[in-house]
């Protein structure tokens, strides 16, 4: 009996100690890990969307609260200290899970600046083509209305054989536009021109 008690004590002591150390380590690194994820996951998509921006959109990002109470992170693009565009990451339900799209909006002309993919689990060679230039290029400089696949009366050509993935991308873009509309007025005050 005493032996069992000793075993239980020592095991729980070791587990407790390791739990304590790890939760401390987690506290310390959380912020850096989030930063790193943004740089390496969202960073390339942002660079693709805003090829002319001279600031670091990841560093200058700000969190906004939507009227629905949800939080959303917005990435600004600046040229010579002037805010020219914003990007919002949204998700659509694709074939292989959530499809993440970085939607860039051109504030100067009130148009789409372009899109880039962040998380992609679509079928390689078929659905994954939504990340390819042929599909994404259609959004560069597109007006904010009439954004729909040709099958539903718009002018965006879906990736052939991948209607689910294309639909997911459109779903994500639609969400981003809704967010953009509701936050539009706050951008200029959040990132004033310098």
């Amino acid at each position: 009996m005493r032996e069992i008690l000793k075993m239980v004590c020592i095991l729980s002591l070791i587990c407790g100690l390791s739990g304590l150390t790890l939760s401390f380590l987690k506290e310390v690194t959380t912020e850096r890990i989030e930063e790193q994820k943004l740089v390496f996951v969202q960073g390339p998509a942002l660079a693709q969307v805003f090829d002319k921006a001279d600031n670091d959109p990841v560093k200058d990002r700000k969190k906004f609260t939507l009227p629905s109470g949800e939080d959303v992170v917005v990435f600004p693009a600046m040229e010579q200290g002037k805010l020219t565009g914003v990007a919002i990451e949204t998700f659509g339900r694709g074939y292989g899970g959530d499809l993440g799209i970085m939607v860039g909006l051109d504030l100067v002309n009130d148009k789409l600046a372009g899109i880039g993919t962040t998380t992609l689990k679509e079928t390689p060679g078929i659905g994954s083509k939504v990340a390819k230039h042929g599909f994404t290029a259609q959004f560069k400089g597109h007006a904010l209305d009439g954004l729909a696949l040709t099958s539903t009366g718009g002018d965006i050509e879906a990736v052939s054989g991948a209607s689910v993935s294309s639909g997911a991308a459109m779903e994500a873009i639609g969400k981003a536009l809704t967010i953009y509309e509701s936050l539009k007025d706050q951008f200029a005050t959040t990132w004033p021109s310098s």
Partner: protein
Amino acid sequence: MSKFIKEFTKGLWKDLPPFRLVLGLCPTLAVTKTADNGLGMGLAVIFVLTLSNFMVSLVRTSIPAKVRIACFIVIAASLVVAVELLMQAYAYPLYTQLGIFVPLIVVNCIILGRAEAFASKNPIHLAVADGLGMGIGFTLSLTFLGALRELLGSGTLFGAQITAEWFKPFGFMVEAPGAFVGLGLVLGGMNYFTNWQRRKQGKAAIDGPTHDCKTCGMCQGLGGK
């Protein structure tokens, strides 16, 4: 001191983990697509192995024999989680490259094998020497195999283009089949070298290393037999 050096150096050649003891095959095969990845995985293993050997040796007298394996697993797994967090914070691209093989360090036979076979029976300084030596040996082996596969498979070394224009890389080498065949040939080559040495000393040649469950040192340990 001489004992310290002896335990340290055995991991570098005599008991070189992946090539001599045939330990930790999965990461050896999986992450050696490039020399970079091999090196990164090796460094993570050095960290976990040295610290786990240190801690196991530290608590070796106070752990009841029946739960020692469970304790070793908790120690190793905690260190692996620590590596996961640190790697995400300071080497995120490497973390995504190594993928699932970062958490899988915990079931790498080297970690639990050394804890059971060495650290639980030896004083702290020797356990650390053993961990460091084995870890460095593992790292060198992985980097070597990674460099070999990268060079033949994509014509680069540590990401830098070094082969001549006319060299057409064998895509085979960076894929799974190349990993198995590459490791098999390296093992065979090491044996050939050993046998060449033995013949010079007038001893009979030996067969290649065999891998069975004893290599892990876990057979008796885990079954409680």
